[in-house]
């Protein structure tokens, strides 16, 4: 058993890191030398992971161009072997990798944009949730309202950045205008990733909305969440926030908390 593990580990190192094979690898194609066969295998391995990254990070690919993206991807693949049998799980560490990737240092917003893209990628594959039924909310009496706890759609993600990453993401949306004008100095943003009618959407949240939603995410009851938010942000408008989050399919259910 140990021998098999050792052999598989050597084979993996040969493929992933390009090391010389330590043991003879049986090659069933007589026309190929062992080295050629390994190169073909390695390039398929890299090609598949590159394509998985390109599928998860289409905006990053457009931002930096195909050649740069390919180089970035190959460097990433070298240091990050696939750890799941599901290729959709591959690439979670790319935002951190981008942040430390020397050739991308000039593009300060790239790592945060990648974080947003990964959130969108995860949102796409997140579990389904039932649509919110307002009748469910209507059944509670006013004195029960402070104790209500909202269920949020599993696709919901919040990404903060010093840069206008939602505008960057939206500018690269297939339906977006080809010519966009974004000034990186236009300020920070809080991007809310959500999914409604099978489409991942990105909208901006205000600071009070994000503060409130963070508490709702941790299942703090409505009364406590709202009061704490109002203490910090007296301008917080609960009604518009509720309407927005129901419309965006972020709130999917409500129950009476313990």
């Amino acid at each position, binding site marked *: 058993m140990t021998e098999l593990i050792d052999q598989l580990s050597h084979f993996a190192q040969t493929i992933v890191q390009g090391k010389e094979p330590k043991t003879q690898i049986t090659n069933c194609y007589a026309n190929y030398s062992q080295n050629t066969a390994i190169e073909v295998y390695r390039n398929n391995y890299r090609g598949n992971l590159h*394509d998985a990254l390109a599928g998860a990070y289409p905006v990053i690919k457009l931002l930096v*161009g195909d050649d*740069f993206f*390919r180089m970035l991807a190959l460097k990433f693949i070298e240091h990050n072997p696939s750890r799941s049998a599901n290729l959709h799980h591959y690439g979670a560490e790319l935002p951190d990798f981008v942040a430390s990737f020397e050739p991308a*240092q000039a593009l300060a917003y790239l790592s945060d944009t990648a974080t947003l893209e990964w959130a969108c990628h995860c949102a796409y594959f997140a579990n389904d949730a039932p649509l919110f039924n307002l009748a469910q909310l209507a059944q509670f009496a006013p004195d029960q309202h402070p104790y209500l706890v909202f269920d949020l759609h599993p696709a919901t993600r919040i990404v903060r950045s010093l840069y206008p990453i939602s505008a960057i993401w939206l500018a690269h949306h297939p339906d977006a205008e080809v*010519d966009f004008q*974004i000034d990186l100095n236009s300020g920070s943003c809080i991007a809310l990733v959500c999914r409604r009618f099978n489409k991942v959407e990105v909208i901006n949240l205000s600071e009070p909305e994000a503060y409130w939603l963070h508490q709702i995410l941790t299942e703090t009851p409505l009364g406590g969440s709202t009061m704490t938010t109002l203490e910090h942000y007296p301008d917080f408008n609960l009604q518009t926030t509720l309407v927005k989050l129901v419309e965006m*399919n972020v709130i999917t259910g409500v129950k009476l908390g313990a």
Partner: protein
Amino acid sequence: MEKNQILSVAISGLLALGLAGTANAADNKPEMEKCFGIAKAGMNDCSGSKSSHSCAGQASKNNDPMDFVAVPKGTCNKIANGSLTDGGGVVKKAM
């Protein structure tokens, strides 16, 4: 406003909008949710004619990607003030 009143006003506001049929996602016909495991277009496609081209664009030799000068050439050029110097200061670029 009293604490409970804030909540109740907001909730009745939401319900009123919902009853008017303008703000309730549930009022829209639920579209078919995607089948679990279906890939995004062009992604994770390991079957059919595409798989034989999975290494398209990958040279058959192991090429060092650092061999060519690494300069991003995509839409990042369109983002104003998008390039930082090594010192971290924002470089003003002509649009």
